[in-house]
């Protein structure tokens, strides 16, 4: 005899629940958590290195790096002067809240101001999994092409800030900035956007100022 059991449960509710726990752990320690997402090679790690070098005198930084394999990125973050933890996802295409929860236990949160989580390089899957960080930052880059907002709408819809990296390459590649930004505007109107080059450091200051403003705003909220 068949019986229908109504459920109405979000399929990712377990992940969302852990994400909420992660957020409250960060909040109670006064840590601002940023989730950096991008395709492979967009310059997530370079941007993180620059963030550490420029802000380490004023803020205590930590980095949690998600990669399918190796600790190359965590090593780079550590060399730049941040505490770092590597998560190897062993094939998974994204970080989830449970992986982040494990990594948070390895950090002295009370001593940290700013935590950057470097997600697995991928423009699809990380968008579906909340981590418990406060803001998501998408790092696009000029050589990827100007059609990426149109091709990966889920990722562009779900972020609070956008970095357009490698602007020093604009003279050498076909990248219509107007077309790119139109695509972003359709999906995420008014999105805070920072065109910059990690290599030449042009435009970096506006992004760093945003990070510090977010840090200040977060401090006021959690206090």
């Amino acid at each position, binding site marked *: *005899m*068949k*019986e*229908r*059991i*109504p*459920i*109405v*449960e*979000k*399929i*990712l*509710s*377990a*992940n969302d629940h852990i994400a909420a726990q992660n957020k409250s752990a960060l909040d109670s320690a006064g840590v601002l958590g940023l989730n950096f997402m991008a395709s492979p090679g967009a310059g997530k790690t370079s941007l993180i290195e620059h963030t550490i070098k420029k802000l380490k005198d004023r803020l205590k930084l930590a980095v949690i790096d998600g990669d399918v394999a190796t600790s190359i990125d965590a090593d780079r973050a550590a060399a730049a002067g941040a505490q770092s933890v590597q998560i190897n996802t062993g094939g*998974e*295409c*994204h970080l*989830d809240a449970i992986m982040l929860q494990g990594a948070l236990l390895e950090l002295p949160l009370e001593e940290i101001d700013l935590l950057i989580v470097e997600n697995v390089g991928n423009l*699809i*899957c990380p*968008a*579906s*999994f909340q981590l418990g960080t406060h803001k998501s930052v998408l790092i696009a880059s000029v050589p990827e092409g100007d059609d990426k907002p*149109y091709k990966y*709408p*889920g990722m562009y*819809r779900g972020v609070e800030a956008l970095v357009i990296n490698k602007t020093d390459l604009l003279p050498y590649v076909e990248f219509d900035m107007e077309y790119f930004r139109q695509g972003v*505007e*359709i*999906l995420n*109107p008014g999105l805070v956007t920072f065109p910059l080059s990690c290599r030449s450091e042009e435009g970096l200051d506006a992004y760093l100022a945003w990070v510090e403003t977010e840090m200040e705003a977060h401090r006021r909220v959690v206090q």
Partner: protein
Amino acid sequence: MHELSITESILEIALRHAAEAEADKITDIHLVIGKLSSIIDDSVQFYWDIVSDGTAAQGAVLHFRRVRIEIVCQACGESYHPEELDLSCPACGSRDVRIVAGEEFRLEAIEVE
């Protein structure tokens, strides 16, 4: 390809509710997926056959109910169902819009024996 972890979540939720109902076997699983959720039905089905193997949900039929996108314009109040990527209001052109449907991703019901 995050359908594997998603499929594992579906199995976990279904088995938990079946156990609470003291059911022996799950025959059908009803999923609600909004058109804005980047989930591929075939891929979930592929992983389902693997992860449900040997459980009370082995062989259960997956039913996918797709929900169309519904948006309410915050500027003029227009309600509409965009088919294209452009989510802006067709009536007044505003991009200050609220998505009221299309992001669903949940388990609606299971059928058990």
